[in-house]
């Protein structure tokens, strides 16, 4: 019998293994960070220098100043923030109880609701846009907060009820049974026992939901116009017949990253916990 062949990894000394592992990690991190770093670099260059980011040494905050002086851009930030927050709040109101129902109840109502959500999830996201456009138009809410909010809420309910169901599946129902015996109504057992146990899950969902709406482009592009600019759409409008304003677009993108970055930083513990389910 021949001795087992030693692979590349086995032939390395423990120190070298650590160094090699670190190198690979650094390479992977760089791969993901590179676009963001490049974006940041571009946003700090004058308009004339954006094509020579790697060559020039001239840096300026002009692009940022220009953005803050543009009322439409400032409005877009406010609108995006407001819509993301409102959509998150209202969709969670429904999602939490709907996820709970899917997890705990059997019967016609629960299975019908399950069917509706399942069917909605089977439809590709993009196919919703055109019908939604006509619906929004016919109700006269095109290019308003409500016209963008309602579709977002509907989509979130369908997508996140599943996640919420998964969270509640992971919570032991005997705790609620104990609460029922301890004097709670069915609603009380949900509100006082199941809900507090689901706070990590709800926090995760809040972060996911907010980021999803903040970053959403397709609905915003089709369902809003001049009156309700949102940041993702405005960002895309730096591309025009006159050319590309890379520096402005990059600066806007960097600013748009900030709230998402902060939220993820504080919520990542919950998001990871949420994604594990």
């Amino acid at each position: 019998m021949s001795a087992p062949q030693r692979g590349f990894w086995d032939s390395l000394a423990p120190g070298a293994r650590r160094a090699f592992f670190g190198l690979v990690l650094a390479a992977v991190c760089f791969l993901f960070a590179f676009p963001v770093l490049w974006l940041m670099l571009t946003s700090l260059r004058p308009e004339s220098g954006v094509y020579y980011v790697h060559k020039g040494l001239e840096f300026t905050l002009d692009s940022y100043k220009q953005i803050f002086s543009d009322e439409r851009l400032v409005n877009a930030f406010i609108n995006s923030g407001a819509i993301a927050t409102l959509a998150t709040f209202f969709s969670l109101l429904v999602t939490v109880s709907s996820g709970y129902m899917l997890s705990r109840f059997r019967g016609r109502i629960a299975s019908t609701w399950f069917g509706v959500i399942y069917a909605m999830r089977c439809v590709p996201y993009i196919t919703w846009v055109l019908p939604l456009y006509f619906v929004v138009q016919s109700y006269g809410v095109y290019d308003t907060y409500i016209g963008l909010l309602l579709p977002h809420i509907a989509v979130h309910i369908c997508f996140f009820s599943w996640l919420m169901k998964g969270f509640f599946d992971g919570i032991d129902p005997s705790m609620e049974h104990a609460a029922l015996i301890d004097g709670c109504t069915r609603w009380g057992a949900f509100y006082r026992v199941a809900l507090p146990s689901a706070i990590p899950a709800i926090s995760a969902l809040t972060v996911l939901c907010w980021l999803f709406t903040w970053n959403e482009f397709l609905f915003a592009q089709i369902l809003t116009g001049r009156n309700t600019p949102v940041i993702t759409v405005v960002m895309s409008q730096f591309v025009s017949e006159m050319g590309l304003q890379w520096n402005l677009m990059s600066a806007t993108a960097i600013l748009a990253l900030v709230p998402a970055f902060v939220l993820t930083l504080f919520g990542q513990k919950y998001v990871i916990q949420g994604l594990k389910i």
Partner: protein
Amino acid sequence: MSEIVLTKLNKHYGGMHHAVRNIDLTIGDKEFITLVGPSGCGKSTTLRMIAGLEEITSGEIRIGGTLVNHLPPRDRDVAMVFQNYALYQHMSVFDNLAFGLRNKKVPEAEIKKAIRNAADILGLGELMQRKPRQLSGGQQQRVALGRCIVRNPKVFLFDEPLSNLDAKLRIQMRVEIKRLRARVPTTSVFVTHDQVEAMTLGDRVVVMKDGYIQQCGTPLQVYGEPANKFVAGFIGSPSMNFFEVGIHAQDGELIAQTPFLRARVSERYKAALAAWNGRTVILGVRPEHLRVNASDVDPIGKVEIEVIEQLGSEILLETRAGDLSMTVARVNPQLPVAAGDVIQLSVPSDQLHFFDPETESAIR
């Protein structure tokens, strides 16, 4: 008075699975009943129907004379301990204990007094401000017991509360539950799949299988006079030995015989077995009733030792005679035996059990 009366209790799941069948059972005031049986026998379902966590398909449940069929759990005045403790994870031990009383709008001073009393009984004093996840399994189960005591309910319900504990802790908690019973006598129903728990805790033991009650009696009754082959095999450890024997009369005696074993039927069973003369029945012998090379009791035959399990306090023997295998327990640990030895087994004839091979019910 908090007697529980179950009358013709049935539970179907969607018409397909009949989990509990026609249960009739009266649990006396302050009586401790254990429901025991293999998984899927309907014991937990019965308990959950008493608690109000499962709806009843048909039949009646009365607690303290009141029909509770349609009462929600909170109005039945019962308390329950769950297998996985079911403590409220986001609350401290104190709040867990206080939860039920606060729901009843009991004044805070009284709640504190009740909790102090329960904490004294269960030794929870140090743990009051901790969260359940900071407690060991045994401590969590004690908190769960405390949650029942503070409410001072009509009925305690236990759903396999010791199953998640390790063997040593389980014995300790068993004793603690016995002690608790003495201090807080309350009508109790205890579900378990462990026959030792059922026997040691219950005033009466209810053995269930396939949704039916197989036998209900004191621990001594279910052990000494099992109603059928299932109960005989389920209660007792190691399990009872069974084999088919022919019954025939000889010199005014009834003899139970196989090609390898031969036993005299005692006076106790003679009348009942007379009708089986010339037919086959199932003979049951408990491993602990078999004696090795004893001269003072009736010998039943010779067997060969296959496996020896030395436990220190006793020896367990797996033996064989022809195609029959038999377990022998409580053998003197000092007895010089080796695998392959042939030994003489004897058993007092009134320790034999006979079962109808068709219905499997006891013949007596």
